[in-house]
């Protein structure tokens, strides 16, 4: 698999998690979310509009986010702000636990330091 495909596969699923985690800190609008995700992930989550907005709207439809149009001061056009719901917080907590389990588990596999039952029992050799 080419590097680009690896990156795309790894990013799948992390976008929604990133959005929920970001909005845990307060409401934000689309362009603001793009910039914050890019900054906090040190450029890893560099989303474009074709990824961000469908993800935001899907999360809103799932009830994990709520949105409201807000008229900013200074005559700027209204912006749609997103904030996390109670269901969103619960989903985020669950996702964080899953994420930790996955990272802990995978790091054992990737670094070869895992001590699962196969290794401990001396098995794991292909038969």
């Amino acid at each position, binding site marked *: 698999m080419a590097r680009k495909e690896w990156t795309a596969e790894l990013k799948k699923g992390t976008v929604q998690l990133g959005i929920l985690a970001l909005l845990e800190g307060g409401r934000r609008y689309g362009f603001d979310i793009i910039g914050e995700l890019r900054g906090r992930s040190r450029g890893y989550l560099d989303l474009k509009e074709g990824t961000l*907005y469908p993800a935001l709207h899907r999360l809103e439809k799932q009830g994990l986010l709520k949105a409201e149009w807000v008229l900013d001061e200074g005559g700027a056009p209204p912006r749609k702000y997103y904030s996390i719901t109670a269901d969103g917080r619960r989903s985020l907590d669950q996702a964080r636990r899953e994420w930790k389990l996955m990272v802990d588990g995978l790091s054992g596999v990737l670094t070869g330091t895992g001590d699962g039952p196969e290794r401990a029992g001396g098995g794991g050799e292909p038969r």
Partner: protein
Amino acid sequence: MSGGEAPPRAGRPAADAADYERRLRAGMRLMSGKDRDAVSREIMGGVHAQAAARGGGFAAIAGDLDDPRWVGRQMVRVYGVAAPWLVACVALAVALALSSAPGALVGPATEGPAVAASLAGFAALLAVLFALLLSGMARLASYAAAAAVATRLAALALPQEGVALLDLLSAGELSLYLLATLLLLVVAGVPALALRLRAGDD
């Protein structure tokens, strides 16, 4: 991000914000007007904010944006197809399914022209289902397929010169007819189910 196709290769960037919005709205044409307006307003607000932040106007960001038609299609997958399009699509599937029943358009059912007409109708029906699936509208494809299957089964009772199609077909022809009908469910139903399991269809 949940499933979905990868962004297409960057094509010709939009000439200006109005061109971008026109293409975005074209990509969302299957959505309801209300949803289309709200989504367009939000995305265009983001595009303008990005251009303002870059300080060079729309031209400075045009090359960094996704293909607006593709963006629009992604939103259709979130919002689904508006009722009038859904009805039109199912009606087209019903019409093609009816035309794929031997003798429905050209009679008598067991003669060459009728068989040729029914094959053409069936091919057109498959083409429509494939087109819907390739556009990522798996749920719509499954509705159309279900309507087509129901129509083809109902068409067996269609009287042709006083005799139902069911009685005109030999056992072998009837088996083939039912097998082809089942194929419609396989063609549209299985990919729809697979896409739903992957999450993020229409």
